[in-house]
């Protein structure tokens, strides 16, 4: 499959942003961090390096097409679920249910998407997982904190597998006049949401004063939120040519997904607070864990999928 010209144009733009960011990071490092003691600049540069790796991986997966995207997101779901269930309440009696979540539910969900079986993949975890996993847990006979345990396991599967799998599910949409291009919808969604995260960080660092949720996340400010989501929504409008949307529609879609991304970040922060951790993991230098980087995409993907499907898709 030859890559679409639109995809290559977007990648060129992303590479340009990364190069500018890397140069800016290097200049900041030389001017203000010669001794390596400035934690903010150290973290910024670690984040930029990790971005190169993440862009490279996603770019390769998108180039590889349907299978590449399915495998990448199945692996991301696995890593995210591993982080999530590390923090949830569990006992010996949950062992079968947890193992089934990783080794049955997760692969089956992605296989169903690969088979294009909308009627089943859109209810598999919310219905079948929801009913059968508690049965697996109850068979082991331990009733201590039972409701907490099954609820937290189900929540992890909904967020890390069900919601995340709606990114590759975009490939199953058939849109008139947009045949064979649905991979660009993924590029649009992921770029807009992640760009919003980055712009929120930059706006917040530059002029963030008023905290939105001081008890939840000290780094989230009104200035960062409004500046970040608006900038990213305007960028989304500017990328209308990637999508089946008009520029105004692209702006509104970008606005929806960036708002969802922001609030998704807040929800996941609340869970981290509740469980007493700062980051979900440690595998992505500068960013934390996989969920720290994916939370906004995960919250926006299902809504973006259903809006696009309802208003634009033929099936």
């Amino acid at each position, binding site marked *: 499959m030859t890559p679409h010209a639109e995809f290559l144009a977007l990648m060129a733009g992303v590479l340009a942003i990364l190069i500018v960011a890397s140069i800016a990071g290097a200049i900041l490092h030389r001017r203000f961090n010669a001794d390596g003691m400035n934690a903010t600049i150290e973290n910024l540069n670690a984040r930029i390096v990790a971005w190169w790796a993440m862009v490279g991986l996603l770019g390769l997966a998108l180039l590889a097409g349907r299978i590449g995207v399915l495998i990448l997101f199945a692996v991301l779901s696995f890593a995210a679920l591993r*982080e999530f269930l*590390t923090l949830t309440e569990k006992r010996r009696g949950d*062992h079968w249910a947890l*193992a089934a979540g*990783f080794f049955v539910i997760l692969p089956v969900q992605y296989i169903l998407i690969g088979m294009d079986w909308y009627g089943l993949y859109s209810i598999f975890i919310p219905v079948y997982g929801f009913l059968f996993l508690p049965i697996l847990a109850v068979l082991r006979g331990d009733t201590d904190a039972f409701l907490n345990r099954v609820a937290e396991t189900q929540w992890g599967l909904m967020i890390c597998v069900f919601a995340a799998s709606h990114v590759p599910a975009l490939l199953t949409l058939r849109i008139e006049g947009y045949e064979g291009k649905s991979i660009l919808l993924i590029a649009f969604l992921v770029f807009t949401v992640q760009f919003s995260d980055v712009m929120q960080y930059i706006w917040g660092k530059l002029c963030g004063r008023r905290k939105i949720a001081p008890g939840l996340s000290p780094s989230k400010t009104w200035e960062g939120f409004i500046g970040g989501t608006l900038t990213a929504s305007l960028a989304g409008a500017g990328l209308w040519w990637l999508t089946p949307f008009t520029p105004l529609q692209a702006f509104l879609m970008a606005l929806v997904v960036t708002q969802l991304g922001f609030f998704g970040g807040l929800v996941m922060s609340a869970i981290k607070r509740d469980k007493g951790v700062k980051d979900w993991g440690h595998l992505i230098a500068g960013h934390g864990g996989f969920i720290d980087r994916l939370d906004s995409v995960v919250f926006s993907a299902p809504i973006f999928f259903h809006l696009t499907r309802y208003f634009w898709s033929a099936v």
Partner: protein
Amino acid sequence: MPGTLSWQAGRNDKKTGSAVIHSLLVWLVGECIALFARLITAVRAIWDGIEPVPHQRVYFANHTSNGDFVLIWTVLPPAMRSRTRPVAAADYWLTSGLRKFIGQAVFRAVLIDRNPETRTMDPITQMVEALDTGASLILFPEGTRNTTQASLLPFKSGLFHLATARPDVDLVPVWISNLNHVMPKGETVPVPLICTVGFGVPVHIEPDEPKEAFLERAQTALLALAPAKDTAP
């Protein structure tokens, strides 16, 4: 023949050829086990009292799962891994061909007989002999896997006797967190969850220190490394 170039030996001597294949296989199996451990646990080492440098040490750890020493072994840098030998139960590791290969060839475990009535070799003597060849050891002083609600079982006296026999060797406490949820006793399928391995400040035996006082001190040093959630009642 001494002085023979190794490539010549490899060409002329069939035994050397199969030895090369054997050591490649040992290396490959070891790497596969470490990769699998990382895939399931994304294990992270916390060096909080010693540096990851190849000094001779006795690592003593809490024991909740059969995978415990695999996890310690996985986070050790390769130069340390090749000199570190777990102390393990012969009755488990000699029962099948695969276990024998993994236990003896890959991990080069110091296999001890846990039954005082049948054993022909004293476990402490075996461990001291291994130390005297320059190896580091991984030891589980609780003696058996802990399946109780307590954070740690009372230590057996092995650590004390080893410390008395070789008082200069660093005894490093190592806390393994979360592996009991990944692979509880009796389960066959591991659940992927993130684990950590914390290394603490080495303990040494004081001159004339009584057994109980030393073991108490070693247990306290190990428990001090445990995250709060591991010791909560």
